[in-house]
């Protein structure tokens, strides 16, 4: 049987299932032992809760990060609320045992938080429920499932992976983790990726479908789980697992190396990220900076625009994770296929050619200024943030954005808030218009980053999601390659750095061309960092130059692709 969920952490796990059941927190048999004794029990339990929780917070802070640990320190603060504690005491005075007092008061607060309109606040309901079950467990003397004692080869199955569960986990004994809730950016996902354990999350009814001892294969990349696999499937996945580990080991030697070609010429190798949590993974996978931080995540899955403070914290957190390394942050790139309901963007006939990205932002200075101010402020601490404008087609757009940026600086100056005065402003070169006037644009911005996905789509006039024309979507088309070459040349002539943050930057077939043309920085997904570094290591400059020259002499996309395929063998 195959179960499907969200592949949240890459790798293949093979083992037998261990289900972590909810603890039995039934307190109906508890006998009330008098007001004073119950008050003492309550106070002792709160003390124990605080001690345990601050120990866990400290563990998470060192193992995972400050932000993650604040969930736990926040729980201590909440339980320390004197008003909440006095409500519990009142119930005890009225003849209830400490368990009932905790249960009722926490239950009331959980309901109160669950009903509020603010999304972030609603999450506090989860915290209060967590406080409730952990307090009850302490009072009842029920120990949680001890995950530190799992036998080797365990596939952990749980409703959710809580921070407290993660703390005790012995990584070497866990083959994989399966849960019923959580997405790729959920707390559990971030934790399992940090632990490098294969994980499939959000499997409907996993706890009912999987029984203790079941033989399980989990593919954390694909998000699939095989229950009771037959011998052939097992053999197949053992091989996949071995390949995955071998590839990982092979590339691991490049983790701490410099990104240089065989002649010792240096290149910058950066990561593309979509959230502050991914910055950590990027740093750990050997990225030398962030070449593209997509800020859309901050605006998605919510009902109102994120505040300046919220954005500031997100940008600052990436700046800190990457301390001493560059972080290129792309301003809001909405529209096209990325709709955000509450922004009230109109439905368009041709969204990819419509009111999107920089065009939308410049028409909404109220909204855009919030982001620019947050970026300026976040840049003040590490001086490592660069601002990148998406979908630029004209000089006027750069000028308008720059003047808005100057307005924001003046405001911050007047308010006495620290900001990065010399923050670099660059553009994503991803339209044919920008490619053709790259020489002019380079005069008025501080850097280029080539976005090959959109550049290819617009140059080829092809919707890559349309099956009837998708074969026309190819970066190997001479039109796209000439375009990339001339953008790089324009940047070189103007003396500004040029990078590439589209999928093409990680394509081993294009690396010799990009090296030859003088690309300064390759920005790829975290999982492609080591492979890209290995590919760059492989080339001598003269050999790469010959390949580039030969490829550019070919006249069809298929011809170029075939030739490059054979050239990298």
């Amino acid at each position, binding site marked *: 049987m195959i179960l499907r969920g969200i592949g949240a952490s890459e790798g293949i796990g093979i083992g037998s299932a261990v289900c972590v059941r909810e603890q039995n927190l039934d307190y109906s048999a508890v006998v009330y032992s008098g007001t004073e004794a119950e008050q003492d029990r309550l106070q002792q339990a709160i003390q124990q809760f605080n001690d345990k929780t601050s120990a866990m917070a400290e563990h998470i802070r060192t193992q995972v990060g400050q932000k993650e640990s604040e969930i736990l320190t926040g729980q201590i603060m*909440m339980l320390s609320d*004197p008003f909440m504690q006095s409500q519990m005491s009142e119930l005890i005075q009225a003849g209830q045992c400490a368990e009932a007092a905790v249960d009722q008061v926490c239950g009331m607060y959980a309901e109160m938080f669950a009903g509020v309109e603010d999304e972030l*606040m609603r999450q506090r309901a989860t915290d209060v429920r967590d406080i409730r079950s952990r307090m009850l467990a302490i009072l009842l003397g029920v120990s949680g499932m001890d995950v530190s004692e799992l036998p080797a080869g365990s596939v952990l199955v749980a409703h959710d992976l809580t921070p407290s569960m993660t703390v005790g986990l012995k990584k070497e004994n866990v083959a994989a983790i399966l849960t019923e809730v959580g997405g790729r950016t959920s707390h559990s996902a971030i934790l399992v990726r940090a632990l490098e354990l294969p994980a499939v999350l959000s499997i409907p009814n996993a706890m009912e479908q999987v029984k203790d001892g079941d033989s399980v294969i989990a593919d954390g990349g694909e998000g699939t789980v095989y229950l009771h696999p037959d011998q052939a499937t097992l053999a197949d996945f053992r091989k996949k697992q071995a390949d995955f580990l071998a590839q990982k080991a092979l590339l691991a030697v490049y983790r701490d190396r410099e990104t240089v070609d065989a002649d010792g010429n240096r290149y910058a190798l950066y990561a593309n990220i979509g959230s502050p949590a991914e910055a950590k993974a990027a740093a750990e996978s050997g990225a030398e900076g962030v070449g593209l931080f997509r800020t859309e995540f901050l605006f998605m899955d919510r009902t109102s625009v994120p505040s300046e403070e*919220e954005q500031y914290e997100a940008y600052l957190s990436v700046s800190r994770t990457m301390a001493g390394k560059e972080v290129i942050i792309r301003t809001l790139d909405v529209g096209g296929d990325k709709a955000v309901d509450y922004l009230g963007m109109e439905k368009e006939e041709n969204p990819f050619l419509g009111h999107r990205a920089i065009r939308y932002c410049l028409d909404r200075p109220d909204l855009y200024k919030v982001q620019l101010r947050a970026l300026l402020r976040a840049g003040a601490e590490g001086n490592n943030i660069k601002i990148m404008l998406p979908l630029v087609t004209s000089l006027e757009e750069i000028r308008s954005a720059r003047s808005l940026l100057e307005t924001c600086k003046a405001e911050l100056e007047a308010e006495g808030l620290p900001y990065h005065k010399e923050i670099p402003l660059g553009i994503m070169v991803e339209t044919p218009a920008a490619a053709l006037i790259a020489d002019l644009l380079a005069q008025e911005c501080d850097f280029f980053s080539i976005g090959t996905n959109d550049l290819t789509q617009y140059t080829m006039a092809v919707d890559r999601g349309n099956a009837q024309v998708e074969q026309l979507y190819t970066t190997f088309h001479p039109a796209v390659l000439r375009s990339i070459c001339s953008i790089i040349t324009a940047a070189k002539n103007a003396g500004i750095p040029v990078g590439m943050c589209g999928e093409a930057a990680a394509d081993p077939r294009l690396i010799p061309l990009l090296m030859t043309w003088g690309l300064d920085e390759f920005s790829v997904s975290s999982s492609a960092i080591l492979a890209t570094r290995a590919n760059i290591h492989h080339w001598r400059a003269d050999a790469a130059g010959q390949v580039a020259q030969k490829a550019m002499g070919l006249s069809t996309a298929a011809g170029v692709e075939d030739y490059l395929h054979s050239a990298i063998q």
Partner: protein
Amino acid sequence: MVSATTKIVNPQGMHMRPAQLFVNTMAKYQSDVTILFNGKSINAKSIMHLMAACIKQGSEIEVQCSGEQEAEALKAAVELIESGLGE
């Protein structure tokens, strides 16, 4: 009882950290502290009540203090809110 109307200026509003700072400051005074917001009366010495009220940036609130040290408590509350609650 003394009271004053003021406005939340810090971007986060009464989220965890600002609310904690406010509650800790108010705990130093003997008087009861109540915030009137959106037609609701909130016990401002309780971080849980304060957070659950979802008081955002730009919200107008009325702070009421009553009992011993009421004047000092009100002064401290208004100053703290207007200075941006530590943000």
